[in-house]
């Protein structure tokens, strides 16, 4: 069997063929690497890891031979470059991490490695996961495999493109406000954002710590479920992971939609929404009704606060999380020169007494300023400024504190609605893939790309995006399912119903 056909199989089938020898893991990985090179125009990867992939292959092959193959033998994986892998660069698509090599591996990724994945590379992304188009990368934008003039979505654009282009069978992304689901929708793949606390964040470079989750992008629900299953569960290294047991989501993948109550929130539509996406929602609603679910409208009354709340909280957290990139210990360091020192002289007098006396007027603070000025891209700087502002004394109550209250209301909306409904059905993104450059100068319109996704991060609930049809230009459309805390099993089962009907 050839590698391309092998990649398109479900993971379970692939594993069988690998075990029987009809499919060769080395070939599968090599072909993935070759595809990545052939499709380098997509710019889906920041770092390819051929050597590491070969070692992974050898290791997994040995385990196959011993009959001790892990549940993910046969998964060829791309890892978003904000997830730590020991001995490899970790760039977060930022200049500020130039030359940084992670000395340790993220918990979630280590679990996948132990389960037999082969990692072929670190995927491109928006810098520090901030963006919805993958244009905010120090390594250049990623292109959508469906139309190279269009964006793949973001921030996990490289991961989504690598899956959509058939380079890998699955990819890890991270989702703070929609960064797994929105690119999954724009690239036509499955994208799962687990419940907050379900997957360890240890080793995921923090953007908005109370919102971030590692998610899975894959071509099939089967592979998504299997990868998720391995990653999920409590981690002693992440205090925010939940001890709630992880149900077997693979076993229940075929439960169907029968008997489920599915709500369509009234607030998730309206002006910004493209009619073709609205139609997709109706079609999926019809399909699920046909499969025995009860679909009816519902309400999430505080939806309008989602975007401001999300941007205040995520920016506040990011302004603190990104403070560590100061050039003192690792990554880029731009030594301040005298001209810089003079520019910031007034600022350095603040606390200058704490700094050691130097021959010149340059203080460590100047080097930090210079490094951060040059090392971060414009979107990251914008969010750091925004976040610093909303946490400042005198503004905290008006912004951060108010956003925390709004967040509680948004969460309560979901708690209430899940008393009646098992799942919610919404669009993933308001549009299909837009053109490169189309929104880059209009941050507000870019921020609205998250309008349907960010609420789940604020509420902490799990959600999945699955492809459903295409628009007139042949661009994929994504629909989103949301569930109550820790009900990834339901999301995957119903996504599988949608997948089967495609």
């Amino acid at each position, binding site marked *: 069997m050839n590698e391309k056909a092998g990649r398109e199989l479900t993971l379970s089938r692939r594993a069988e063929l690998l075990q029987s020898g009809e499919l060769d893991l080395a070939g599968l990985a090599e072909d993935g690497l070759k595809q990545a090179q052939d499709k380098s125009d997509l710019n889906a990867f920041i770092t390819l890891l051929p050597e590491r992939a070969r070692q992974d292959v050898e290791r997994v092959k040995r385990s196959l031979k011993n009959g001790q193959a892990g549940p993910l033998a046969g998964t060829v994986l791309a890892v978003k470059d904000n997830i*730590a892998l020991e001995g490899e660069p970790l760039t977060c698509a930022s200049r500020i991490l130039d030359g940084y090599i992670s000395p340790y591996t993220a918990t979630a990724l280590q679990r996948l490695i132990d389960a037999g994945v082969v990692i072929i590379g670190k995927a491109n992304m928006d810098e520090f996961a901030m963006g919805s188009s993958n244009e905010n990368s120090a390594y250049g934008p990623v292109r959508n495999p469906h139309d190279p003039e269009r964006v793949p979505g973001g921030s996990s654009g490289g991961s989504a493109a690598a899956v959509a282009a058939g380079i890998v069978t699955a990819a890890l992304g991270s989702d703070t406000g929609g960064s797994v689901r929105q690119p999954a929708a724009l690239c036509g793949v499955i994208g799962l954002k687990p419940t907050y606390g379900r997957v360890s964040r240890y080793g995921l470079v923090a953007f908005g710590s109370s919102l971030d989750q590692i998610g899975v992008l894959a071509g099939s629900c089967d592979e998504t479920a299997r990868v998720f299953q391995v990653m999920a569960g409590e981690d002693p290294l992440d*205090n*925010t992971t939940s001890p709630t047991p992880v149900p077997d989501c693979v076993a229940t993948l075929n439960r169907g939609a029968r008997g489920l109550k599915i709500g369509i929130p009234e607030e998730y539509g309206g002006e910004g929404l493209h009619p073709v996406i609205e139609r997709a929602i109706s079609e999926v609603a019809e399909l699920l009704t046909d499969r025995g679910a009860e679909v009816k409208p519902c309400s999430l009354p505080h939806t309008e606060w989602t975007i401001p709340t999300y941007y205040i909280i995520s920016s506040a957290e990011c302004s*603190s999380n990104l403070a560590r990139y100061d050039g003192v210990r690792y990554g880029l360091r731009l030594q301040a020169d005298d001209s810089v020192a003079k520019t910031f002289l007034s600022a350095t007098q603040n606390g200058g*007494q704490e700094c050691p006396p130097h021959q010149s007027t340059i203080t460590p603070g100047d080097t930090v300023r210079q490094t951060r000025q040059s090392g971060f891209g414009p979107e990251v700087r914008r969010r750091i400024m925004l976040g610093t502002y909303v946490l400042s004394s005198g503004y905290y109550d008006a912004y951060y504190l108010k956003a925390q209250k709004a967040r509680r209301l948004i969460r309560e909306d979901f708690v209430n609605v899940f008393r009646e409904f098992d799942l919610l059905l919404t669009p993933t993104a308001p549009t299909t893939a837009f053109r490169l450059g189309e929104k880059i100068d209009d941050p507000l319109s870019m921020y609205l790309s998250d309008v349907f996704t960010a609420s789940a991060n604020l509420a902490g609930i799990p959600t999945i995006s699955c492809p459903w049809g295409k628009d007139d230009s042949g661009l994929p459309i994504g629909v989103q399912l949301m569930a109550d805390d820790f009900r990834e099993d339901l999301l995957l089962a119903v996504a599988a119903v949608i997948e089967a009907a495609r």
Partner: protein
Amino acid sequence: MNGAYIATIGLEVHAQLLTRSKMFCSCAATYGEPENRHTCPVCLGLPGALPVPNRTAVEMAIRVGLAAGGRIARRTKFDRKNYFYPDLPKGYQISQFDMPLCEGGEIEIRGESGAKKVGIIRIHLEEDAGKSLHDDPDGTLVDLNRCGVPLIEIVSAPDMSSPAEAYAYLTEVRRLVRWLGICDGNLEEGSLRCDANVSVTREGAPLGIPIEVKNLNSFHGVERALTYEIKRQTEALQAGETVSRQTCLWDPERGITRVMRTKEQAHDYRYFPEPDLIELEVEPDWVEQIRARLPELPWERRLRFAEMPGMRPVDADLLTSESEIADYFEDVLSATGNDVSRSIRWVTGEALRWRKELGRGERFPVSASATGSLAQLESQGKASGIAAKTIYEEMAHTGRDDPAAIMKEKGLEQVSDEGELAAVLRQIIEDNPKESERYRSGEKKLQAFFIGQVMKATKGKADPKLVGKLLHKILEIG
């Protein structure tokens, strides 16, 4: 309008907790190792690393809170204090802002005017920063071994009104944290650190603007810096100037405070809840278990000691200055069959003297039971005071704990044989006719001379009381 100026002082004391590992990672919290040896992704603030709280540190903080009579929060949380500094790897310190682990309580001090209670506003947990080493010619170097070591901050109410009271308070805090075994209390090495807030105002007027004084890294420094700062502020007010809010640095070499930050330069730490840590539920059962395991506290023990017959307040203070001394005293006491005075004398005398000279830290070189047996040899008249001290010295140096055996080996048994001592005394009287005559004619203070001569002749073994009696008998009664 010529009322006296009065000072108001509050102290913020940071105590490094004696946990094995750091506050949020499993690195060892030990000192004196090569730079940056005890570091990991968490305390280095590497991308992606996350903190996990140290339960023992929380327990230690609760112990102090309970000992001071504070209220332990049912729910508490951590917050981020954001500021840039090269020895702060994450760009923020994990601390506690509006929901500290402990609030309220008080610590009793012995001030100039007797006992006084100093209120505790709060006790919270946080992590230490690294150390910047500024003396390298190539620039500033950073050592992160200390980074992430657990600290508690004990914030007092502004209840002190003199440098001496501040000194007394700091002494009490140091004793308490050492007593509870949660901090070694070393100001010079920085395991206990102190910042002061001091304001001066005319009596009866509203409180003045508090000035924060940092870098008070010795007990003496606290007193000197506060004395200086109070004088400075008083003089400024007398000259009609206003004191504006600022943070000062104490310069122990020049003996002055220098402005570090003015009000305009004050940091905005942008505190917000630490999203990497869930709120901490403090189970009441756990708190009760910790309370039940608290040792008898220093002031409780001082009270109990002070009630013992023959115990002066000054002895009770000294004997309860450290839990090790108090324990030792109680052991000696029981070994002497509750001879309070003698136990006090031995512990505050020889035992502490030889611990200071030979002991390792808190350890006494001679066991309490040996000290007790020796005290008994003395009380039974088997060894004279001088001989007993010689025996004690021998035990301190050799670690032996058999005073009776040493006494025999060295021939230090007290001579209580009347005939033997009378013979020695008669010889001395014969050799010192002038003194004998003066004694006879009423110069009784010469008794000391004769006893001294007998002691000398017997190498300290004579029973001095007996010698006195014999002298009386021979020279007066004849």
